[in-house]
């Protein structure tokens, strides 16, 4: 498409190439709650080619008509506004087809070939929305059926949902299995955090403003806090969560990807590989964790109250082993050994059953070198904080000191606040909309590359090893509805710092 002179200046508005989106696990929760409503929004906005169709691969044979109705009803329920009227519902539903995976990959290949011969799309986008144990066999099956090799002039791509492995070894195995069938430029490892507007805005904040980049380094930044708090417990995901835990579920992927966006050097261009190269470099520069007990904290929640409602402790949750040592809270202290960030700790924390759902990056700046207010009532100045709120109340705030009106010199911290909701009206796209569209366009910028996934595992692997070998004491606990265990506070207190109150 790059040679088309008429596309210049209008790429953002162009519809994607027609393709068949083949969703493995297309009857699952993610497909019904997220993927289909997002596809509907894209279709309504004219971002999908009219010829794009959706094939849902399911474990059991499905009645196509009732499945189509189910997709529409689910969209109405989980994403109000995604189905504007009956006419749209009918036309969208007609693009959904079902395939049972008790048929072979060769049959799938034949169905796709038949579709193309009838004038349907020749491009194929495979979406693995299935349990991770199914990734390698499915990728292998696609390869055996020749579906990874597109016809001349067409493309074949694959989107893989997280988790990409459960440790460094399994991640490497999965990457190797995928690389045996698909080229890296065909593989789209989805991390939905990277599709969020506010995460994308980190790049704009850094690269489109002269104000921030000069102070974006160890000369001015005291430390960085990245928090992803959830008020929910494990809900229906106990089986998955017991095998995962907070470190694997959130830090290894989402939080480290955010860290990379915050800490990476400026890329030479906005090309996907330029950005992904810089992310890989900064993750490589993360110092290997050695004294784990002082750099990592884990805990699980005890019974407490969240948003005024009593909730059980983690060990009392359905599907959770009474002897579970799975952490529902984890915090890490990381250092980046490079010119820009030397000496600046990055504190990462995530947890379930915390007081509220909030994801935020806080750049905490150094204290002023000399306080000239010594003879005044001002005995202490707060540090400036640039807070990037990823969800909810998406936006950016800058905290600085201001003089209170009056004769006496009283100083108080105030905030300059930018909120997406008040500065920009209208609907803001869901992260999955952006990411599926990018996969159809062929833009890998917001997808994790093989090396950065493995770097993520390389960073957390020592912690996983230490925790799996440490069976000496019961896991620390925190009361549901609190901000985590005392050990997490102690980790920062040892550095003379504290977590932000969110």
């Amino acid at each position, binding site marked *: 498409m790059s040679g088309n*002179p*008429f*596309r210049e*200046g209008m790429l953002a508005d162009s*519809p994607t190439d027609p393709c068949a989106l083949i969703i493995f696990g297309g009857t699952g929760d993610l497909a019904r709650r997220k993927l289909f409503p997002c596809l509907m929004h894209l279709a309504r906005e004219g971002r999908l080619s*009219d010829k794009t169709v959706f094939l849902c691969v399911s474990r059991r044979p499905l009645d196509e008509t009732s499945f189509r109705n189910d997709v529409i009803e689910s969209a109405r329920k989980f994403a109000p506004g995604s189905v504007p009227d009956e006419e749209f519902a009918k036309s969208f539903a007609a693009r959904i087809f079902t395939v049972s995976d008790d048929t072979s990959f060769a049959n799938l290949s034949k169905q796709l070939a038949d579709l193309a011969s009838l004038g349907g799309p020749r491009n194929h986008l495979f979406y693995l929305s299935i349990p991770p144990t199914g990734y390698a066999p499915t990728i292998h099956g696609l390869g055996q059926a020749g579906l990874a090799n597109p016809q001349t002039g067409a493309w074949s791509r694959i989107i893989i949902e997280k988790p990409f492995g459960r440790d460094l070894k399994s991640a490497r195995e999965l990457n190797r299995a995928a690389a045996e069938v698909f080229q890296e430029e065909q593989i789209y490892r989805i991390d939905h955090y990277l599709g969020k507007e506010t995460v994308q805005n980190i790049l704009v904040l850094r690269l489109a403003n002269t104000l921030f980049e000069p102070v974006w380094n160890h000369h001015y930044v005291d430390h960085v806090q990245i928090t992803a708090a959830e008020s929910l417990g494990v809900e229906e995901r106990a089986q998955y969560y017991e095998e995962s835990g907070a470190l694997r579920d959130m830090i290894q992927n989402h939080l480290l990807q955010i860290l990379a966006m915050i800490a990476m050097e400026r890329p030479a261009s906005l090309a996907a590989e330029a950005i992904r190269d810089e992310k890989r470099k900064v993750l490589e520069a993360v110092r290997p964790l050695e004294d784990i007990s002082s750099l990592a904290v884990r805990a699980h929640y005890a019974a407490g109250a969240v948003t005024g409602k009593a909730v059980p402790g983690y060990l009392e949750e359905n599907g959770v082993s009474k002897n579970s040592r799975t952490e529902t809270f984890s915090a890490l202290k990381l250092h980046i050994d490079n010119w820009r960030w030397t000496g600046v700790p990055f504190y990462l924390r995530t947890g379930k059953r915390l007081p509220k759902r909030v994801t935020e990056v806080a750049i905490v700046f150094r204290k002023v070198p000399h306080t000239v207010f010594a003879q005044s009532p001002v005995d202490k100045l707060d540090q400036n904080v640039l807070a990037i709120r990823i969800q909810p109340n*998406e936006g950016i705030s800058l905290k600085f000191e201001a003089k209170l009106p009056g004769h006496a010199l009283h100083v108080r911290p105030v905030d300059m606040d930018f909120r997406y*909701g*008040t500065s920009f009206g209208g609907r803001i796209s869901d992260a999955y909309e952006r990411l599926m569209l990018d996969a159809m366009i062929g833009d890998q910028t917001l997808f994790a590359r093989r090396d950065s996934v493995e770097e993520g595992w390389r960073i957390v692997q020592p912690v996983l090893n230490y925790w799996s070998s440490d069976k000496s004491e019961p896991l620390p606990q925190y009361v549901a509805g609190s901000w985590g265990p005392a050990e997490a506070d102690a980790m920062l207190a040892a550095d003379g710092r504290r977590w932000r109150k969110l």
Partner: protein
Amino acid sequence: MEKAVSYPEQLAPREQVDVARIEQELEELWREAESSGESVTRATAFNLVYFCARAHEADGQFIIPELALAHPTRSILVTLDEAAPPAERAWVTANCRRLEGENKQICSEAISLEIDGDATLRASSLIHSLTLGSLSTAVIWHHSLPLSHPLLALLADSVERVITCSVHENAPASSLKPWIEFYQQSAETCVVSDLLWAELSGWRGAVAELFDECPDVGPLREVRIHSTGDKTTAGALLVGAWIAGSLKWKMEGIALRGRRPVVECSNDHSIMFIPEGGASGEGVEFLFDNSNAAAVMRDGDNFSLTFQGRTRLARAKDQDIKTLLTHELHAWGRDNRLHSALSAAQLWLPKLLFS
């Protein structure tokens, strides 16, 4: 993400206020809103000034609350009646939207001004006093007011963005002349755009989509632009100029082939305008050296895209005024494609009119 429901509400009833006290009245409005106990956030991303003739006031009253859904602004609706005795009247309110799932309203200040008689000549200074100085200002100039109005030239010197509503795409090409002149005069001081160009985005998208399949434009020799009516239309002229700019074809002269004007370009390239439309209606034909042909034609609610004898349909997205303006207000940078198209159109127009 916060999501807004799609209906505007107004914070206070429309009551006439003293023009000299507009700021105080707005402060009072917010004080009342805060004391009402409802959670109200005042949001302003930029100043938006909408000018129209008094007879078209309803257009502004409709569009400003709609735009406020997507663009929180301090809006100023200015209606002019130069034939009436001199007078200035003002109203203030706020257009609000509720955030889904939250008992919270996001509100944008809205000022309405009626300016009559020779007071219209001083309107610029009043507008400047009412815009928030730390924020950018966008002006929408309704087609009911002439582009040669001295007020518009004054505003173009002091605001960041001017959106004009010059002519419909089926208007004669000659009607583009005042707008091109205004653009040339003002493009150095502010970003100027026109809804006609925005309306043509469907055509531009369809042409781009056609060439996604055959991006080799090397053998392309002639482009034929069909339009309705018996004269070359404004839309046809702009589409032709955009195509020439995209292909980097430079005009060498204008000739007539039969009654049809042809822009003759370097290297034997040409762009022919076929005003009568023909049996196939509105559209663009592309003729190649190698006898290939391609075309984008309007076909009801679709565009039909034909290349090497194969035809497929692409949905034509006709956009209403609200959508066009909402989209335009997202873009604050110069559209280089428009700039290039207008540079070509400006050269072609006098010769086309003569021909």
